[in-house]
């Protein structure tokens, strides 16, 4: 069994209203040291694959087809063997 941890983030140039609202709220709470906040998705996939390469391929295709919106998002996959 493998666990794929996927971070899906908005491409840099694309406006991130969620991140902006959170940054301004944190500034109001006094955390001015915070320069920027960006908010994306953290997805955990539990994959019952025969090999690491197979698990990695399943995770990548899941992102390309569904979990990430290629038009405006990038994704990074980290794979770990669980048992």
């Amino acid at each position, binding site marked *: 069994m493998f666990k794929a941890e996927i971070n899906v983030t908005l491409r840099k140039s694309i*406006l991130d*209203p969620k991140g902006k*609202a959170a940054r301004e709220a944190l500034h109001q709470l006094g955390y001015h040291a915070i320069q920027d906040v960006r908010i994306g998705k953290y997805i955990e996939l539990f994959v019952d694959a025969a090999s690491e390469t197979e698990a990695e391929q399943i995770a990548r295709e899941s992102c390309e087809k569904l979990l990430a919106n290629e038009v*405006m998002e990038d994704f990074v996959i980290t794979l770990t063997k669980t048992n």
Partner: protein
Amino acid sequence: MNASTPQEPQVTLDLAKEHGLTEQEYQQICDYLGRVPTFTELGVYSVMWSEHCSYKNSIAVLKTLPRSGPQLLVDAGEENAGLVDIGDGLACAFKIESHNHPSAVEPYQGAATGVGGIHRDIFTMGARPVASLNSLRFGSLENPRVRYLLDGVVRGIADYGNAFGVPTVAGEVCFDESYEGNPLVNAMSVGIVKVGETASAIATGEGNPVIIVGSSTGRDGIHGATFASEEISEASESKRPSVQVGDPFMEKLLLEASLEALKTGAVVGMQDMGAAGIACSTSEMSAKGEAGMEIDLDKVPAREEGMTAYELLLSESQERMLVVAHKGREQEIIDVYKKWDLHAVVIGHVTNTGRVQYHKEGQLKADIPADSLVLGGGAPVYIRETRRPDYLDETMSFNPATVREERSLTELIYTLLKSPNIASKRWVYEQYDTMVRTNTVVGPGPSDAAVIRLKDSRKGLAVKTDCNGRYVYLNPRKGGQIAVVEAARNVVCAGGRPVAITNCLNFGNPYKPEMYWVFKEAVGGMGDACRMLQTPVTGGNVSFYNENPKGAVFPTPTIGMLGLVEDVEKHAMTASFKQEGDTILYVGAPRRGLGGSEYLSWCHKITAGDAPELDLIFEKSLQQATIEVIHKQLITAAHDLSDGGLAIAITEMAVFAGKGAHLDLS
């Protein structure tokens, strides 16, 4: 000013063509400037002379529509939206616009920014949006991509509209293979303003400060305007522009701040930033005021590093507006926007040169006669070649009676009820907040149009978007007439008297003569009906290039109809049967033939035959009579016969009420 600074590309005819300009248009630019344009100037002209901003291939035809009337306070095209006097010192600003191409690429943000843009057109005139409608068209639901587009578009409209706090009260969703790959997403906004408190999109008064308010500027949707003027094809997939992202929270602040700023009396003029952002708002406001502007682009709050003059001018970042203030009173306006935590930065001032001059890092990047850029000014106007399409010979000659049908009437009704064009749209409209502002007397569902009451007045507005693209495809002239007539009929059935329309004309490539013939005929038909029903056109939008690799989408002139309800409590009408024993009356001319019907399309996959018969004079009296019986409170329900004809209309009236009906068809 030298022709181009080192880092800007050298301007040539090829570069102009790459920007979508023709050789003749490039030559005209050189004539206006008296020299070769700089790269920034070329960018500004290319976006201002795009189809989307200049209407160059449609304005001549649009001028044939009736565009003024006793109740219009502003003639069509003069301001951002039409303005109709509805009595009691109130005026209604309303408009419909399309966001088809962005929604095909990214449905959620495309639809969301469509809603945001149309609301800005309304509150930039000083009116508070009170209702939102939409009109959506997709390919067939079997296709997973269509399901993905439908889900994204509806979610985008819902999330933006619900957060912005304006009820989405009516609309339509249609499905046909012809819209495969090129969905139509038309959004409409209706606003109310006291007569005399409206704002105009004008820049006058030398020295008056020019202020940019709202979001900061990024590289969103650059070439958004020119992108909307190109067909969707494999090529445009790869040229994925950075998507425009909507921020409804920011828009809500912008609305409240702008209406508050207008109350200070310190505002000379105000214009929202849609396609072509700063370039468009600065040049249009200047041209309208026969003035000029001196703009320092370094002052524009930018969201990204190192943006060039070209990018700052063409950026279509959302939720921004341009405000011209009375000299010396700009601080009052800036304080209002600051109260609502919004940027408000002076980026230049009005001049009397009639030219828009944009500076960046101390250099004059562009120096252009404002009037030469705008619709109604120097922007080109073309009369396109027309030719009647051959397909009409085949479809017109088709005789529906030759279709063999073994299924019983009952079986056919069940089959038709499964058609996505007829089945309940509850799954869609229950995602919209249809009740916020507590004015929605008749919302989506069992009614032909929505009815919104006006607080502290007995009056109300009946509003609807409507169009049958198949009829226009099969008979452009009659289809155009029917689009207006059916929208009016819907408003009448809800208890309203039709007053005026806005329209969103979704058509194919204007450079194809067959397509342009269909466009001209459809607009001609619309004019016939508008004149007969005395519902002038207050403005709207044209969206060309709605084609996809397989062919053109159905020609779809979406009509947004505004009706006035004299007394909401007495006249607001719905379509559900009310009490047992009520008599059911069939009113109107007998409908002959099944040409272009949903029955032929859904039950037999045939799109042929002529559009239904229509007698405009008869239609006018039918609608007036219906309004009269409603005013006399003689009837308890009214419903227009459209998709699925009499059988479906009666079924709907019964299902809405959980009742039955006994009919004698002889």
